[in-house]
């Protein structure tokens, strides 16, 4: 085991379609994630954030790049080694209705997950299932019930219990609360936060809601068209965004305090023009320039590189210093 970060993602690319006209869903993403750390990935739909999460678990094919988990590259893994890798990294999906098999009882589903990686001896498995249910705040007596008997929030708890069944070190949560009601969202967010701290999990939290990400995560990556355009500690990113896209995203989020303040000050938000372009089209210069409210001549021709502007704060904008 190396002394580096637990998860080290280096220049990962996921392309679809033909060689001549690739759709660059994830286009050279690098980051590191430590034990006990929660990293948020935000961006609009189509920016590649879900594809990135899935690719890290090998649920999507990785075109190039390296994904090192404690120094071992998982990109080329097959068979037993891939299975071993998956027992260390698990996923929670957005749709609590679609991600549970309706024909498996809660007990059956969890027993299967516990058995799959043989971490618990057979006689102790029932015990482990009950423990898992308790850890996500569900009654252990629910083992005979089926997914349709649960509410959305409870199903998301089941999804979390299933992910925890193999005692993973890394959890990738893809929009885990966006399908839930406001009052239930917080229950799941608090649970996720608690478990992450108790079990010292590394958490990759993918979401489009910046306020939610801020609540859960220590550090945040902002993605646009398959690339990371800004990465920073949560505090710094919200206090002082250094990329116009982040700035626009923050300004667009409807927020109670901001909305009430805007009524008295009459302050206008930054509204981005148009939609996000298709990742199949190559844009010259900065990929964000057609929608940017601070665009200049240089942006149309030169691709900005991701560079560190302050300690731990990276941005891919030519004019970040002026923001």
């Amino acid at each position, binding site marked *: 085991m190396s002394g580096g970060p637990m998860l080290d993602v280096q220049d990962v690319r996921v392309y679809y379609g033909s060689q001549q006209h690739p759709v660059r869903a994830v286009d050279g993403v690098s980051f590191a994630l430590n034990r006990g750390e929660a990293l948020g990935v935000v961006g*609009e*739909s189509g920016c590649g954030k879900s594809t990135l999460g899935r690719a890290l678990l090998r649920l999507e094919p990785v075109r190039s790049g390296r994904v090192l988990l404690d120094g071992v590259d998982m990109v080329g893994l097959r068979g037993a080694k891939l299975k071993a890798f998956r027992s260390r990294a698990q996923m929670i999906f957005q749709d609590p209705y679609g991600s549970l098999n309706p024909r498996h009882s809660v007990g059956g589903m969890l027993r299967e997950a516990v058995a799959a990686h043989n971490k618990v001896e057979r006689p102790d498995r029932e015990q482990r299932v009950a423990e898992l249910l308790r850890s996500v705040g569900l009654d252990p007596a629910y083992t005979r019930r089926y997914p349709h008997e649960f*509410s959305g*929030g*409870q199903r998301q708890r089941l999804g979390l219990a299933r992910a925890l069944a193999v005692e993973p070190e890394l959890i990738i949560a893809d929009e885990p609360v966006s399908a839930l*009601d*406001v*009052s*239930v*969202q*917080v*229950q799941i*967010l*608090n649970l996720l*936060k608690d478990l992450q701290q108790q079990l010292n999990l590394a958490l990759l939290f993918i979401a*489009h*809601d*910046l*306020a*939610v990400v*801020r*609540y859960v995560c220590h550090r945040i990556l902002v993605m646009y068209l398959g690339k990371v355009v800004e990465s920073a500690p949560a*505090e710094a990113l*919200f206090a002082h965004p250094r990329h116009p896209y982040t700035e*626009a*995203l*923050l*300004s*667009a*989020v*409807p*927020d*109670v*305090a*901001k*909305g*009430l303040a*805007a*009524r008295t000050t009459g302050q206008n*938000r930054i*509204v*981005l023009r148009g*939609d*996000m372009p298709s990742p199949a089209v190559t844009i010259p210069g900065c990929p964000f320039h057609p929608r940017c409210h601070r665009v200049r001549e240089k942006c149309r021709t030169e691709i900005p590189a991701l560079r560190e502007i302050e300690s731990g704060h990276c941005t891919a904008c030519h004019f970040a210093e002026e923001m």
Partner: protein
Amino acid sequence: MSASGSKLVTVENLQVQFFGGTNPVRAVDGVSFDIAEGETVALVGESGCGKSVTAMSLARLVPQPPGCYAGGRILFGGQDVLAMDEATLRKLRGRDISYVFQEPGSALNPVFTIGWQIMEAICIHRPDADARAEALEMMRLVGIPEPEQRLKSYPHELSGGQQQRVMIAMAIACRPKLLVADEPTTALDVTIQAQILDLLRDLQKRLGMAMLLITHNLGLVAETAHRMFVMYAGRIVESGAAPEVLAQPRHPYTRALLEAVPRLEGTEGRLKAIEGTVPNPAELPPGCKFHPRCIFAGERCRVEEPVWEAQSPECGVRCFFWKELA
């Protein structure tokens, strides 16, 4: 702007029930509110609280059966919507009241062009108008680029944001007096959400229509609404001017909702979750419907249902203890 203008819509003690299982489900149980001309009113609540059913009822759109209007009145411009004959109702729908729904992708008909769908409403309600020219005008108004070409496009050829613009173009084509926007931006990305909101506000100002905004997003309410009504389990539990309710909520549910929303400026410590889930409208608890989840609930809340206490025509609350909590 407040409710000082003349009343466009008045809803009095509306009761909507659904039949299916053994007991009728009281989806809306005694809801009263009004909307003035040109005003933006928000109806706030979680899924299953009856806000969409209330909104649909304004144009009597709840299918009967299984639905049934069991009581109350809805007056639109002085006419009783629940007592209207079909012909009058047809004139009301689409001309005086129009709707924008959450999922533009499923609200548009996939087998007709955008142009056809916008023109349809114009042809029905304004037979003298040049439908094509009007449709183009509407598409320009909602900011669809290259409207001439887009007229011939099918819904699947447009992005979600553009589809929602088309829905809005259809909705305003007959210059309605009331636009009901049911979670108009929930299915969209935040940046597109901001575009659509700005568009709605701009159109509302220009066309002078009233808007009923149905949402669970309190941030949206803070930015757009003049007045707000908070619903829980088919009842209105609090109402008032939106900035006041949001700044000083009186009902424990409104409070809890506000405390449960992660804030952009960061949260000190933990967010307070509302324990439990929204009750099933077929099995509502006795007493105050919120008491099983209310941290302030007392003995009285478990047995007796609080009545509506109006502090003024504009604001009121349904809670025994709101004064003690303030």
